[in-house]
């Protein structure tokens, strides 16, 4: 009888606070992401394995780089790789959910678009944070990376926040290829970007021509910038330029595809 009362007497109805945003939803989203083995492998397992392979090699691991050593340098690179992976898949999820019709389902609930974006951002950030944490934990446990405490913290923060920009890339690629297999495409393209950005092999080992070309790839600027607290020295204007240019390309591409997508519905 109580439900009869509820439907027929219609008590004062209200809209939810903060557009339907709640941490409980973020928790459900994170749990859902962690359930996806591919996501976990790409964002946590692979970066740690890469760090263990490349970052501990005694031939060069203890060599000095700026305020620390090569092992620390590689640890930052791998954390960046994992965090970028996490944010890209987070961004791709949004466009995938649109293609699946889940966003349409959400539109007949009080959830506001802003709250939805906030939920997705936070979910990406939690996942990105976990990637950084896992790689840095591997670094701590192995005792190889060496740098001052504030550099541990500042590089981790730079990686965490900077990688958020790749959510736009995920959004873009998700709109471009809205399918369940988008993770494979993301895995492959980020692998290429990582080589271009110098995450896997130091750019100094590339031929001059290849190095010039690498400076135009999307992870180049971000990679240089997140290492800056460690390497020190002068800031190169090409780094932020590279970062901004790719940000504009990804956001622009995502907006363009989003518009094309909504125009059809």
């Amino acid at each position, binding site marked *: 009888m109580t439900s009869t009362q509820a439907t027929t007497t219609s008590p004062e*109805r209200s809209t939810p606070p903060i557009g339907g945003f709640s941490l409980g939803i973020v928790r459900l989203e994170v749990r859902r992401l962690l359930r996806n083995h591919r996501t976990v492998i790409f964002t946590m397992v692979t970066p740690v394995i890469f760090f263990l392979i490349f970052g501990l090699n005694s031939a060069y691991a203890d060599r000095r780089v700026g305020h620390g050593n090569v092992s620390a340098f590689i640890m930052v690179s791998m954390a960046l790789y994992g965090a970028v992976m996490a944010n890209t898949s987070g961004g791709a999820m949004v466009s995938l959910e649109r293609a699946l019709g889940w966003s349409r389902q959400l539109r007949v609930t009080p959830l506001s678009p802003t709250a939805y974006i906030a939920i997705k951002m936070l979910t990406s950030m939690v996942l990105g944070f976990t990637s950084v944490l896992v790689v840095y934990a591997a670094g701590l446990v192995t005792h190889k990376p060496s740098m001052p405490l504030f550099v541990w913290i500042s590089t981790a923060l730079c990686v965490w926040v900077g990688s958020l920009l790749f959510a736009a890339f995920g959004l873009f690629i998700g709109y471009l290829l809205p399918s369940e297999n988008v993770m494979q495409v993301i895995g492959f393209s980020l692998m290429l970007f990582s080589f271009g950005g110098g995450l896997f092999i130091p750019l100094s080992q590339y031929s001059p021509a290849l190095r010039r070309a690498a400076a135009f790839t999307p992870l180049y600027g971000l990679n240089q910038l997140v290492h800056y607290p460690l390497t020190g020295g002068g800031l190169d204007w090409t780094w932020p330029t590279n970062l901004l240019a790719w940000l504009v390309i990804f956001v622009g591409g995502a907006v363009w595809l989003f518009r094309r997508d909504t125009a*059809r*519905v």
Partner: protein
Amino acid sequence: MPFPPGPLRRFQNMSSPPTRDSNTHSHHTSTPAGNASALQAAGLGEKKASHTALAAIHLCDLHKHFGSVRAVQGVNLTIRPGEVVAFLGPNGAGKTTTIDMILGLSRPSTGQVEVYGLSPEQAVSRGLVSAVMQNGGLLKDFTVEETVRYISKLFSASRPVAEVLERAGIAGIAGRMVSKCSGGEQQRLRFAMALLPDPDLLILDEPTQGMDVEGRRDFWNAIRKDAAKGRTILFATHYLEEADAYADRIILIRRGEIVADGTAAEVKAMASGRTLRATLAGADATSLKGIPGVEEVKLQGDTVIINSADTDSVARYLLNETDARDLEITARGLEDAFLALTGDEAHDIGTAPTPRGAR
């Protein structure tokens, strides 16, 4: 076409409020005094009264164009609280397009939509209206229970998750991954989600599309139980049986216009008559059409199919005057009635260009 649009329209907007015992009107008028004063004390009395005076749905001269395609053309409609209404029409008639506008998923090209006197967006965000969508996707990597819990967190006041799972008949599969659920189970999951805000108005867009007979029956049983509590329900379907069995009022839509609006009995009466089949080699459609009472003649090889209000005399004629054999007379199926009312010819359905979302 045996039923020109003119006469059908007299039913438009003429239907009276529903006669179900448990509908909102009777519920209110018969509210015991004690109950009413309790509501008064809670300060809900006036609000409730003004609330029920409003139409659940009010559409005024609604148009929607997709480029040059006119999906909805001048729909006027009022649905009162407590009614159970079927939107009936072939694919591409404009049912989903209209529903999308009622839910605020798309904006009318011209015209007005009001849901309980509010804009669709306001009604949705207050949980006054919810929907079981035809192509609302579900996330495969959530369990049934997680999906419902996710949505329940979005409403300011939500029914308990366990309760809606129970009412939708999926409490037993709460822990199952959505990817492992059958089409019918997924549809009941959507229904459970729609029950969360305990909406005054529930909209179902082709809810049993693609379900098997059993799934369809289970689904409608769940809906029927729910409707008995006085909720206003609008569902789109292209199965006349469903409209017939579950709606107080049927609104027939064809090419973005309302062509009939009335009770199931009224709508069925508009498409009376029977169908006669016979084998007749070398049949000539023109001469068959000359038989008194014949409305429509179709030839399929040696088979003739004749629609007529007086099939007896057609049969007499065929048996006496021609070599026709294997005669078979059937009451015109509900499907035929529906086709007679919604399409002038069968090829009208399906070949019209249909933009995405304009079903």
